[in-house]
């Protein structure tokens, strides 16, 4: 049997070349700018702080992944009860989403850290409990605030995703005699996550961009390290430029990672 003639694959309209004249000029200008930044600005502080910077990036990433994963686990029930009811729970989670999404994250963070922190300190029961050594630190409050915020934004996304799963698929699952739990676990949740995946990825990037806020309550993430550098060296621009570059790279890596993940999940071509 002869090979069937290969159907030419669909070639999307070619992206414009990187080497058009105006792009070459632009690249030259940016190269000169980067050279000037590297040459004329002060970068001698980097070796001294490189260890701290790396651990700061680690802290940022740890916060990002911990809060998105835990937040997602909260988001699933928050989204689900808004679709299925019972009414009081649905109403409660709607109020939760509205309140959290309607107030700035920085305010929530400071409310938890300064407000709850000072409240906890008033009760000797809490001061003597085993939790106190943790509650005296800043990161649990940062973690809590970021998790709550992610859960609220994601709960809204998951509500839409759960509601958007075609009824026929759920009815088919019922017709197969699946129990409600199995139906949820095998059909409803995977389909909803699949639908929500692009939004989830976008929200994770947004979450990365919210993590620097925890530096304002003395958690030493990469933003905190850079603030420290700025205080020590009296430099204004150099640390901030490096910080912007670091976040640029992190965002790029995150997007790249999600793109490969999304490509691995089979979906009917649309």
């Amino acid at each position, binding site marked *: 049997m002869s090979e069937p003639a290969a159907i030419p694959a669909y070639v999307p309209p070619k992206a*414009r070349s990187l080497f058009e004249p*105006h792009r070459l000029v632009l690249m030259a200008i940016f190269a000169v700018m980067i050279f000037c930044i590297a040459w004329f600005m002060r970068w001698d502080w980097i070796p001294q702080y490189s260890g701290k910077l790396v651990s700061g990036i680690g802290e940022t990433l740890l916060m990002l992944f911990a809060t998105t994963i835990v937040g997602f686990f909260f988001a699933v029930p928050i989204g689900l009860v808004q679709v299925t009811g019972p009414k009081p729970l649905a109403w409660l989670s709607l109020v939760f989403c509205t309140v959290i999404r*309607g107030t*700035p*994250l920085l305010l929530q963070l400071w*409310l938890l850290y300064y407000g*709850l922190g*000072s409240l906890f300190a008033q009760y000797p029961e809490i001061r003597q409990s085993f939790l106190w050594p943790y509650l005296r630190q800043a990161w649990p409050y940062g973690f809590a605030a970021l998790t709550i915020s992610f859960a609220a934004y994601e709960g809204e996304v998951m509500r839409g995703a759960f509601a958007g799963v075609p009824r026929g698929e759920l009815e088919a699952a019922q017709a197969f005699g699946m129990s409600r739990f199995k139906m949820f676990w095998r059909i409803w949740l995977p389909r909803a996550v699949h639908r929500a995946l692009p939004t989830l990825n976008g929200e994770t990037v947004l979450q990365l961009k919210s993590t620097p806020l925890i530096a304002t309550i003395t958690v030493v993430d990469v933003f905190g390290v850079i603030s420290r550098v700025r205080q020590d060296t009296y430099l*204004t621009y150099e640390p901030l430029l490096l910080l912007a570059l670091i*976040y640029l790279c992190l965002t790029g890596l995150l997007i790249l990672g999600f793109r490969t993940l999304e490509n691995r999940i089979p979906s009917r071509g649309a």
Partner: protein
Amino acid sequence: MAAASQSVFDLLAYDAPGWGGVMLGGFYMSLKLAFGGYFLGLAIGIGGACGKLYGGPLIRDLMEIYTTLIRAVPDLVLMLLLYYAGTDALSQLLALMGYGAVDINALMAGIFVIGAVQGAYSTEVLRGAIKAVPVGQIEAARAYGMSPLMVLRRVTLPAMLPHAIPGLANLWMIATKDTALLAVIGLSELTLVTRQAAGSTKAYMLFFLAAGALYLALTLVSNVVIRLIEKRARRGLVRTA
């Protein structure tokens, strides 16, 4: 108990021993920042979207770089960078022009910072909305002999509005919440004022909850207004879903 709670809420009184007036002042500042930044961002967005859609190759590339950079770096970092760079550049410019050292208005700097960040996002929203306008309508306007600006004013912008409003409403919500980030720079808007009030009275919970209520009220009122605007913008359109 009643007397004690009475005295706690006295802290929110409008006049001097209470902090209510200061907080409302901060809220007013936040509102000005949000409005100014949002509309500056909208202006940048209209320019950016037109540049991306109709501009030459150079302008398109520059716009792409602008939106990509702004959207990839945290708002807080951008705000710090733009705040220092913007005020520095302006004061040096003024010094060159011979005005000497000038104190730059914090409100203007804050509006500039929020507007520059919002501009990138609204560029994307408006670009998508303009692309949703049927080409035939724009061609018809051109066939009538309208100048490009008139096409924009009479056809493209009004026709894209229903498509843009959900995105723009979202951006307004982000703008109101982004003003809180300016507290880190030291602009005395609601969040920073709240922290000062809470720090000096030690009634942290009370003040942060009060500020939260103000922000929430702003969000809820905005929601109502946005719904009205959306209803008006969509009049005459076939309802979908």
